[in-house]
């Protein structure tokens, strides 16, 4: 199953994740574009094999990931791959370990006392569980948007500039440009451009706050964005804006989104993974497929029951 192993060794040398903390933004890794000869962008998105029959290297992959909290098994043996520039939706009943699983892609589980992750997680083939991986560098490349909008109690500008400043960016003109670009991409620029520096991020509406949090992540120039129910605290109109935004972001980023809203999963994602809880209440991956197939023609009876609203 480890087709990525050779690639791992070739990419490893040049990949700066392991080069520990270098504050200069100039040393951020070049984005690796998997769209090679004989392979179309759409192939890369859906992960379908190219002409030669070799699968594109996934942007991120989980290999036999299990996660325990203390003695409680929360996620059992999940393996999946996400092609670059595609959106994977994670759906499933509450407690099936979706958030827990999501957090292993940027090692946020490290922060939870008692949480233990086994197996391997890869970004561009690099093992993220390896001890020499710099989590700081990793989290710059793999951004995260939380369920509850959590802007810092600072100005809108300072919120967006937070990530770049922490890695040493201080040039005023460059920061201005980056802040504007990030806010524009997060569809918030026109609403806030007049009091960027005066208005606190907390003074925005919930939907605006969440778009600010997305802008804040975009400003760190990540390659992958993890979103844990990003629209669950928002009204329908803000939700639609965030969904629109996600479809635009898909052109540039690889996105994994947890959602309880199946219409949302159907609307925004390319592929969908269905998680469920076993008898022992540990979450596991039941089925992963193209979103349309999973919703219209699932292979597993559990999936069918869930997507048709018979349980969950």
């Amino acid at each position, binding site marked *: 199953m480890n087709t990525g192993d050779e690639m791992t060794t070739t990419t490893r040398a040049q990949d700066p994740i392991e080069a520990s*903390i270098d504050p200069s933004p100039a040393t951020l890794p070049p984005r690796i574009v998997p769209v090679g000869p004989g392979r179309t962008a759409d192939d890369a998105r859906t992960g379908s094999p190219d002409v030669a029959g070799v699968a594109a290297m996934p942007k991120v992959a989980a290999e036999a990931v299990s996660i325990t909290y203390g003695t409680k098994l929360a996620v059992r043996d999940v393996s999946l791959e996400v092609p670059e520039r595609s959106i994977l939706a994670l759906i499933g009943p509450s407690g099936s370990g979706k958030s827990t699983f999501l957090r292993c892609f*940027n090692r*946020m589980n490290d*922060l939870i006392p008692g949480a233990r992750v086994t197996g391997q997680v890869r970004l561009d083939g690099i093992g993220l569980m390896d001890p020499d991986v710099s989590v*700081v*560098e*990793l*989290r*710059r490349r793999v*951004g*995260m948007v*939380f369920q*509850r909008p*959590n*802007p*810092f*109690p*600072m*100005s809108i500008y*300072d919120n967006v500039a*937070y*990530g770049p*400043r*922490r*890695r040493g960016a201080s040039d005023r003109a460059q920061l201005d440009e980056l802040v504007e670009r990030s806010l524009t991409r997060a569809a918030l620029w026109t609403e806030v451009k007049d009091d960027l520096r005066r208005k606190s991020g907390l003074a925005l509406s919930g939907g605006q706050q969440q778009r600010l*949090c997305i802008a*804040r*992540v975009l400003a*760190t120039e990540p390659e992958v964005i993890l979103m844990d129910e990003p629209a669950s605290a928002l009204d329908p109109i803000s939700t639609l804006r965030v969904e629109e935004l996600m479809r635009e972001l898909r052109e540039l980023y690889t996105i994994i989104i947890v959602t309880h809203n199946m219409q949302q999963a159907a609307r925004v994602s390319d592929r969908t993974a269905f998680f469920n809880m076993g008898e022992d209440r540990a979450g596991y991956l039941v089925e992963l497929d193209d979103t349309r197939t999973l919703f219209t023609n699932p292979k597993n009876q559990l999936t069918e029951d869930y997507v048709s609203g018979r349980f969950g």
Partner: protein
Amino acid sequence: MSAPSQARGALRGTSGRTIVADRAATVVLWALGGFVLLLLGAIILHFVIASIGVVSPSFIFGDPSDTELGGVGPLLWNSVYMLVLAMLIAVPLGILAGIYMSEYAGDNRVTDTIRFAEEAISSVPSIVVGLFGLIAFVNLTHWGFTALGGALALTLFNLPLMARLSEQALRAVPADERSASLALGATKWQTIRHVVLPLAIPGIVTGIILTAGRVFGEAAALLFTAGLSTPTGYNFGNLNIFDPKSPWSPFRPATTLSVYIWKTNSEGLSQFAAQIGDGASALLLGSVLIFNLGARFLGRILTRRLTAA
């Protein structure tokens, strides 16, 4: 009876009782709050009235030996000097200890013991602290009565207090804010420096104010450490901090205003003891007020400086 009117009746019944309870709670809380304010106002008013005719520029800045009433200039100076000296020790160390305890040390039996000890030590009777200070900072060091000895004695209970209050202020910062910062690729220290500390500043300032209040008001811990002599003839032009005669030196006896109040009232040598007490108390109240407002103001500026950039 029709259904709507029944519903209205039920609505009135339940809310009636709730409203009574709500009103009662409001009245009681207002009364308690009013009582506290009244008490505070009475204290302030008492000293303002009592100090009329006592507090004058010559009382605030003059020497005790100047007139029969005498001024309290050097004592006020010593109070401020002692405050600065004690805070220079307790505030940075206390905040660092608080950061360590809240962000790095974790929760185990050792840190629980430390927290318990911090709370216990900061509430030890100050006369005991004074006696310990006499042994440690006066006799063992052969310094005699010095401002530094007094400040170190104050540190014995100020540092644990400051550390504990800083820790609590830091812990109160929501986990969401920390996660947001770490998930953006900030290091742990960057997260503390740019997110956690600014949010904790109001709590830390409260800690500083409580600590400072104890320095201003403390007498017992200073009697045997900073000394009881009545200072006169301070020459502020003498900037040599190693000269025990310089008012800038930490190695000189430094009787504070609080100690002086205690002294004049217990010795009964001066016929003006009561007036001196009233005037000095009014000065102390004023100083505390100025310090508190100043600390809040600086705290707000600091928060702004820390979060921008």
